[in-house]
C-alpha cells in the first residue's frame, strides 16, 4: 500500500512558510493565521489517515509492523557506497510522532490566533510556526541519520527564531543565542558520531542500521579506541547530540532561558515536540543501543535519572511560572531517557522502550496544555511570577479546570494519562536497576509537590491585587485547552503496547500494583504537602526555606551551572582564546609581514646614499677602493 503521500505532511507547512514569508507585508494577520492553521490542519488529517492506514489497513506483516519507505530520493552522493537520501520512513514511532506533532501544532496554531492578536510580528510568528512544523515533521519522518541531522539543525534554527521572537528585548536575544549555541555544540558531537557510524557501516539508512543481523556484524568487525568499541563511541556521541536537544544535564541550561519565547512556542517546541527529539533519536537507533552497546545505554539511564532528579529539585524553588514548567519538562524528559536506558530489546525486556514512547506521547499532551494554560494566565495578569498571582480559579474557570487536569496527569494521579505512562517507566526501572528505580520514585513525589505548589499558588491562595480584573481568555484560546484536557485523560487508555514496542511485537503491559501503589503513595504525599503549604497563605514555606537556607539558595540559583558556562565562554573562550588570537594576528603574524616590508624599505633607505649622483663621491669611492684593493693585492702577493 502506497505511502507516497506522506511527503506532503511536511511539505504543506513548508509551502505555508514560503507563502507567508513572501507575502509577508501584503497578507492580513487574520489571513496569515487562518492560512497557517489550515495548512497544519491538512497535515494533521493526513497524519491521522497515515496512522489509520498503517496500523489498521496494513497492520502486522508476519507478526511485526513493517518499516515502509513512503518516499525516497537521492539528495547528495558522498561516494559510490555512501549517499544521503531524503524521504519518509513510516514505522510505528514515526507515525506516533506524526500524530503528536500535528495535534499539538494544530492546537498551538489555533491558540496563537487569539494569543498573538494585535502583535506587530503576527505574520512572522505564523511563518516561523510553519517553518518549525515543517522541520519537526521532516525530522520524525527521516529515513536516515543524515536526513535527521538536516532537520535537527532546522528545528534548531526555528527554535532560535521563535525564542528570539521579541527581538527588541535583550533577554530574548540572549536566550535565543544561548539555545542555538548550546545545542550546536552538542550537534558537533552528533555529527562526529554520524561520521564514525557511517564510516564503519557504510550506510546512513535507519532500516539497515537497525537491522539486528547487521548490528552483530558491526560488533564483531569493529575496532576499539580507548577501551570502548567504536560502536559505543559513535552511540555515545550521538547521544550527546540528543542530550543537547533534549536538555539533559549538563546541556540543559538553554531550556529555562528559552521561556523568553511566546508561550505557545514554549508549548509546542520546548515542551511537546522538539525537546523530545533526543529521546526520539535514541528510540530510532534503539536496536543498536540495545544490542550493540550496553555501556551507552547505561549512560543514558543514569544521565536521564540524574537529570530528572536535578531538574525536579530546582523546579521546587523557582518563582517564574514558565520556568517551573521548563524544569518540569527537563525532569520529565529525564524520565523518558530512563525508560530507554533501562530497556532491553524484545518481549518483556522491552517494556522500558514502550513506556518511554508512551510517556513521550502523554507528556506532549499534558505539558502542552500546561504551557498553554500558563500562556493564558500570563496573558491576563501580565506577570510571570507566581507570587504576584493567586485566587485565579474564580476568574478563569476553564483555564483553572484544564490546568488542574494537566496537573493531575503530570503528578501521576490514578486514572490520568501520566499515571499509566510514568508507572510503566518506574516498573521497567524496578526490574532493571534499583538505584534508578528509587530515584524515579522520589522524583514522582517531587513532581507532584512542585506541580501542586504551582497550582495552589496560582489558582487558590490569597488573591493578588491585579491592575485589571482577570477574566477568562477568548474562545480560540480556550477550545485548544479543552481539547488537550480531554486528550490528557484519554490517551492514557490507549493500549500502547499493541502499537509500539521495541521489536514491533505486541506487548501486553499490566499494571504492577506493588510498584503502582508505591508511586501513588509518593504522589499523594507530594500533593498533600503542597496543599498544606500553599492552598492558603501561610508563613510555613518561608520557615522551611530558612531552615534549609544553603540548599535552597543553591537550588534557586540552579546550582550555578549557568555561571560555570558563563565563566567558560566569557573568561576562557573570549578572553583567553579569542582575544589573544586577534591580538596575535594583528601584531605577530601581520607584524611579521609589516616587518618584512619595513626591513625592505630600511635597507633601501640605508643604501640609497650610495647612488647620490655626486661625481666627487663616486671619484672618492673609486680612488679609495683602488688603493685598498691594490694594497690587499700587494699584501697577498708578498705573502704567497
Amino acid at each position, binding site marked *: 500500500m502506497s505511502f507516497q503521500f506522506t511527503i506532503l505532511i511536511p511539505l504543506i507547512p513548508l509551502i505555508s512558510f514560503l507563502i507567508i514569508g513572501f507575502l509577508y507585508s501584503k497578507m492580513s494577520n487574520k489571513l496569515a493565521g487562518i492560512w497557517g492553521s489550515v495548512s497544519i490542519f491538512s497535515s494533521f488529517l493526513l497524519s491521522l489517515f497515515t496512522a489509520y492506514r498503517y496500523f489498521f489497513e496494513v497492520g502486522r506483516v508476519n507478526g511485526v509492523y513493517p518499516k515502509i519507505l513512503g518516499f525516497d530520493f*537521492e*539528495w*547528495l*552522493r*558522498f*561516494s559510490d557506497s*555512501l549517499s544521503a537520501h531524503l524521504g519518509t520512513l513510516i514505522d510505528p514511532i514515526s507515525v506516533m510522532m506524526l500524530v503528536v506533532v500535528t495535534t499539538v501544532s494544530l492546537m498551538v496554531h489555533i491558540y496563537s490566533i487569539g494569543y498573538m492578536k494585535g502583535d506587530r510580528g503576527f505574520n512572522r510568528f505564523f511563518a516561523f510556526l510553519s517553518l518549525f512544523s515543517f522541520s519537526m515533521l521532516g525530522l520524525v519522518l527521516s529515513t536516515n541519520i*543524515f536526513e535527521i*541531522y*538536516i*532537520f535537527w*539543525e*532546522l528545528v534548531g*534554527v526555528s527554535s*532560535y527564531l521563535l525564542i*528570539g521572537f521579541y*527581538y*527588541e*528585548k*535583550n533577554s530574548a*536575544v*540572549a536566550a535565543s*543565542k544561548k539555545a*542555538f*549555541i548550546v545545542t*550546536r*555544540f552538542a*550537534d*558537533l558531537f552528533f*555529527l*562526529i558520531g554520524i*561520521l564514525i557510524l*557511517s*564510516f564503519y557501516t557504510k550506510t546512513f539508512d535507519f532500516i539497515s542500521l537497525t537491522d539486528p543481523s547487521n548490528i552483530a556484524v558491526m560488533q564483531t568487525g569493529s575496532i576499539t579506541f580507548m577501551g570502548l568499541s567504536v560502536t559505543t563511541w559513535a552511540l555515545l556521541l550521538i547521544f550527546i547530540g540528543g542530550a543537547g536537544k533534549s536538555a539533559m544535564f549538563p546541556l540543559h541550561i538553554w531550556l529555562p532561558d528559552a521561556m523568553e519565547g511566546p508561550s505557545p512556542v514554549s508549548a509546542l517546541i520546548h515542551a511537546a515536540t522538539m525537546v523530545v527529539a533526543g529521546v526520539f533519536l535514541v528510540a530510532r537507533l534503539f536496536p543498536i543501543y540495545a544490542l550493540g552497546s550496553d555501556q551507552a545505554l547505561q549512560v543514558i539511564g543514569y544521565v536521564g535519572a540524574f537529570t530528572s532528579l536535578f531538574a525536579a529539585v530546582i523546579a521546587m524553588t523557582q518563582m517564574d511560572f514558565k520556568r517551573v514548567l521548563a524544569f518540569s519538562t527537563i525532569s520529565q524528559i529525564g524520565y523518558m531517557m530512563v525508560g530507554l536506558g533501562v530497556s532491553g530489546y524484545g518481549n518483556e525486556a522491552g517494556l522500558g522502550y514502550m513506556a518511554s514512547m508512551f510517556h513521550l506521547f502523554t507528556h506532549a499532551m499534558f505539558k502542552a496544555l500546561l504551557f498553554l494554560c500558563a500562556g493564558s494566565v500570563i496573558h491576563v495578569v501580565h506577570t510571570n511570577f507566581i507570587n504576584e498571582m493567586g485566587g485565579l480559579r474564580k476568574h478563569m474557570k476553564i483555564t483553572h479546570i484544564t490546568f488542574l487536569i494537566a496537573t493531575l496527569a503530570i503528578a501521576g494521579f490514578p486514572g490520568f494519562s501520566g499515571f499509566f505512562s510514568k508507572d510503566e517507566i518506574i516498573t521497567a526501572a524496578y526490574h532493571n536497576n534499583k538505584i534508578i528505580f528509587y530515584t524515579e520514585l522520589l522524583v514522582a513525589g517531587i513532581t507532584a509537590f512542585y506541580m501542586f505548589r504551582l497550582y495552589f499558588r496560582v489558582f487558590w491562595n490569597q488573591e493578588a491585587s491585579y491592575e485589571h480584573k482577570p477574566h477568562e481568555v477568548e474562545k480560540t484560546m480556550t477550545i485548544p485547552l479543552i481539547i488537550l484536557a480531554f486528550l490528557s485523560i484519554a490517551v492514557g487508555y490507549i493500549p500502547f503496547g499493541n502499537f509500539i514496542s521495541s521489536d514491533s511485537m505486541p506487548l501486553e503491559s499490566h499494571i504492577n500494583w506493588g510498584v503502582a501503589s508505591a508511586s501513588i503513595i509518593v504522589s499523594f504525599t507530594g500533593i498533600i504537602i503542597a496543599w498544606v503549604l500553599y492552598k492558603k497563605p501561610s508563613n510555613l514555606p518561608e520557615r522551611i526555606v530558612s531552615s534549609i537556607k544553603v540548599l535552597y539558595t543553591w537550588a534557586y540559583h540552579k546550582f550555578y551551572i549557568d555561571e560555570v558556562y558563563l565563566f567558560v565562554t566569557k573568561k576562557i*573562550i*573570549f578572553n583567553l*582564546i*579569542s*582575544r589573544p*588570537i*586577534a591580538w596575535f*594576528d594583528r601584531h605577530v*603574524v*601581520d607584524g*611579521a*609581514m609589516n616587518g618584512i*616590508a619595513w626591513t625592505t624599505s630600511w635597507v633601501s633607505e640605508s643604501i640609497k646614499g650610495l647612488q647620490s649622483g655626486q661625481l666627487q663621491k663616486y671619484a672618492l669611492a673609486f680612488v679609495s677602493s683602488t688603493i685598498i684593493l691594490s694594497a690587499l693585492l700587494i699584501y697577498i702577493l708578498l705573502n704567497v
Partner: protein
Amino acid sequence: MNLSLFVIIPLLTVLLILFSKSIRQTRLIAAIGMSVQLVLSAILVVLYVSLRKHGNADQFVFVKDIEWFKSLNFNFTMGVDGISVALIGLTSIVIFAGVFASWKMEDLHREFFISLLVLAGGVFGFFITIDMFSMFVFYELAVIPMYILIGIWGTGKKEYSAMKLTLMLMGGSALIIVGILGLYFHSGVSGGPLTMNLMNLSKVHFPVEVQMFLFPFLFIGFGVLGALFPLHTWSPDGHASAPTAVSMLHAGVLMKLGSYGVFRIAIYLLPEAARQMGPFFMVLATIGIVYGAFGAIMQKDLKYINAYSSVSHCGLILFGLLMMNKTAMDGAILQMISHGIMTALFFALIGMIYGRTHTRLINEMGGLLKVMPFLGAAYVIAGLASLGLPGFSGFVAEMLVFFGSFQHADLFHRILTILAASSIVITAVYILRVIGIFLLGPVKNEHHLLLTDATWWERLSAGTLILFITIIGFYPYFLTNDLIGNSLEPILQKILMFN
C-alpha cells in the same frame, strides 16, 4: 561555444563605458553587459551538460588553441570542464550582483566601472584558459585593478591596505611564476616539446624530486590568494578598505583563483608531492579554519568579522583539496562556490548598511532589524548560511569535506577533521553574536530610526545571491554530481595513478 566571449563581453562593456556621459548611462551599460554575461553562463551550463549527456568524455570541452609565442610553444588555449563552468557561473553571479551593489557609485563612475570590469574580465579569462601562461597573465590582470580600486575608492587607511594587498599578492605571483617555469622546463622529461598546456602537462610524470621542489612554490604562491595561514593578513585590511563591489568580487571570486590554482596546477600536476607534503599544509589549513573563526569572535568591525570568517571558510577549501579524494574535493570546490556567493552577499549587505549608518562598528549600532527589515533579514539569512545551516549551500560543502576527510582512517586525519568540524560551533558563536549586537535588541542610536530600507537595486543584488545559495542548498545534486563530481574523475585518476 566560443569561450572567448566571456572575455570579449566585459571588454566590450568597458569600451562602451568609455563613451558614457553620466552615471546613469555607465551603470546601465554595466548592468546590461553583466546581465548578458549571466545569461551566457547559463547557456554555457546548458551546452556543457547536453554535451556530456551525448557522451562527450573529453576532460576539457570547447577547446580552442591559438598560437601565441611560437618559438616558446606558448599557446592561448581555452577549454572548460564542469569545475571551471561552475566557477564561471559563480563569477557571473557575483559581478552581476556587484554592479547593482555599486548603483550609487557617483565619483569617477566611469573609471570605477572600467576597473571593476577589467578585474572581472581577468577572472573570466583565468577560468576559461587551460594553459599556465595565459592563466598567469589573466591572474595578474585581475590582481592589478585591485590596487587602483582600493587605493582610489576605498575607505579608511586605503593606501596602506591597497599597497599591502598588492605587494603580498605580487609576492605570491613571484612564487607562482617560479613554479610555472619550473614545470615548463621539466615538461620535456618524457620526450615531447616543452609546454604550458595543462592537458599535455598532465600526461607528464615529473620526477619526485622536481615535484617536491616545485610544489611549495605553487602551493604557497596560490595559497596567498587563497588565504593560507599565516599569509592571510592582507585579507582583513584589504577587505575592510575596499569599496563594496570590490570586496564582493575579491572575497567572492578572486580568492577562489588561489584555491583553483592550488587545485588545478599544484595538486593536479604534482600529486606525489601533494601527498607527501600534504600533512604539513593540512595542518596550516586546519589552523586557518579554527584560528580564523576564533579571530572573528572579538572583532568590532563588520568587514573584519567577515574577513576572518573568510579565512576560516577558505581554509576549509584548502583542507578539502588536500584530502585528495573525491568526496572532500567535491566539497572543497562546492565550498569555493558557496563561500563565493555567501561572502559576496555579506559584503554587499555590509556596504548597504554602511552607506546608511556611516559606521561599520557593531557597538555603535543596535536594533537595525527593526529599522531596515529587508537588509536585516538578509543579513540573518547570510549569517545562517555562513554557519552551515541545511537548506543553504555551505552546509552541503562542509558535509562533503568532513565526510571526505573522514575517509582517511588514521588518527592524524581524524583529529584534524574533528578540529575543522569544531569550527561549526565557533562560527555559530561569532555570527549570532554579531547579529545579536547590531541587528537585534533595542535601537541604540536614535538617528538610525530615520534610515530607510533597501532600494530596488539593493534588493535585486542581495536577492540574486540569496536565491543561488538557497537553490544550491536545496538541490545540490546537479552541482556536486553532474558538474563537479564527474569532472573530478579524470583528475582523481591521475592523482591516484602514482600511488
